């Protein structure tokens, strides 16, 4: 076997090795994104379990009953629309915006009704909801990091060549808090 043949064979092996590792890397990154998304869903559904109890706690206060009750019912319905396996950052944005509105409504109810504010059960529920929101926030940040790694994997050169021919994966959208960015005067042009 002459030198040129050996060089040719080694080059083919190196290229094959690169293609296989890149392909598997993209698959692993995609699975990590799906797993992180599932973790977000778990936390959102955990929040959904607390909401009925919260609904009962505020149901006695008729003035705000309709607004807050409607908000909670709508929130539960929106959480139910989240699907496993398919990251849906837009739906998540809707849910988070709705959650913030509902929590604000409950806060206003609490301020208006001192006996509700003093209720141990209500305090416990609010604490649980707040804790759950923090868990969701952390789960979303973890999800965003995994999405960034995945998007880098499929967009960086020469990984994008392997992706275009073999994996054919598309970029995943990260979660952005539209409600929070509304308050800023500056928006980056990205």
């Amino acid at each position, binding site marked *: 076997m002459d030198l040129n043949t050996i060089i040719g064979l080694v080059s083919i092996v190196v290229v094959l090795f690169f293609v296989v590792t890149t392909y598997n890397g993209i698959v692993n990154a995609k699975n990590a994104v799906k*797993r992180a998304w599932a*973790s977000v869903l778990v936390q959102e559904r955990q929040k959904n379990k607390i909401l009925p109890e919260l609904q009962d706690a505020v149901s006695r206060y008729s003035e705000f009953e309709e607004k807050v009750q409607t908000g909670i019912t709508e929130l539960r319905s929106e959480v139910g629309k989240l699907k496993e396996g398919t990251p849906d950052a837009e739906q998540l944005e809707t849910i988070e915006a709705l959650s913030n509105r509902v929590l604000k409504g409950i806060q206003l109810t609490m301020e208006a009704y001192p006996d509700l504010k003093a209720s141990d059960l209500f305090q416990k529920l609010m604490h649980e909801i707040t804790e759950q929101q923090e*868990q969701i926030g*952390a789960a979303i*940040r973890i999800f965003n990091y995994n999405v960034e*790694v995945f998007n880098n994997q499929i967009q960086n050169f020469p990984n994008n060549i392997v992706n275009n021919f073999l994996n054919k994966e598309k970029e995943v959208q990260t979660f952005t808090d539209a409600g929070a960015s509304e308050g800023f005067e500056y928006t980056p042009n990205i």
Partner: protein
Amino acid sequence: MTTETLDQKTIDNIKAKLPEVNPKMSVEKAVKIWTIRAELAGSLDEVYAVGQSMEEYGRPIKFDTKQEKFGLWTGAFSTISFAYAMYSGNDIYGFLTALAEAYTGVERVWFGWGAPALFALLTLFWWRRYSNKEYEVSYLSGTLAKKAALYQNHMKASDVKVVGGQINKFGELRRGNHDRYIRNPFSGSYRGRHWSFIYEAYRLHYIDEHRHETTDMNGQSETEITYKEYDRSGIMLSFPWVKGIHLCRGFETTLYPAPYKPASMQFNQRLHCRGADDTALARFLTPKMVERLIRATEEIPGLCIEVNQNGQMLIACNHDHVVALPHDTKGDKECDPRITPEGFNAFLHQTFTMPRLAPLLKLADDLAAPYTR
């Protein structure tokens, strides 16, 4: 003298019988009294009282070492001179040693090298006396500084046998294939945001043995044994809410068979998780906890966390010791009691922080947050 071997009644008796230091007292006697008070000091106030007494003494706390210095220099000069005279074959020296040989019958070479050897021994003697005197002040200032640092941080020295007995209760401590032992343990209490706890800070020293076999041209094999020594340190505390987990990178223990990977890629790059069962890990590693642990790996180098089946937690790092105690202030113009006792007293009153220990305590506090609400 250590307070571990004395009961409280004896300590109180000794303290009561110790005279108060006054400026007329000799520095040797004053240092002896202060040293006993420093060793028996059981609180920060008692440490400060000794520092205050040293300041009120009114003059630098320094032994008179003129005699020792004179003896040292004279002895060294004599040693070198006689040795040179013998080595160079000086005529006068040769005559004197011959004379000694004639009188005693002992060969002159014994006198020739015996004289410098004798002066060398005398030099050593004066050097030891000088070092001992210097050491007494260093020991006093070091004891006071260490106790001030410990008491300020609500800590005290622990029994190494008691803490060392924990070595087989944690997989993280079973490092080193040749030897391992715990040294310099301290116990303390910490009041965190979420809970208060008592902990033991330890230092693990372990030795790895490496065998390297080589075969020479004649087919004979030779084994070369080398030893490498390492230090790691950390804290141990009671953590009853979780059992059987190990989070670490680069060191795995067979005590925890079930691997687990949370959803975060960033976490999985920094820590590997194993548990007695993966359910315990899944419950423990909520998204908030995962984020906290990611931050912890940036604050604490070589982080390892273990909670054994008895509900005892260990948080370890790469530092050789997390309890950083101040050393002797010798030579420091602002706080050496040999130069300025006022400066030394002010030094005792400064805030002693433990920058390597603080992140571990903060982490232990945050890890308990979900369970202590």
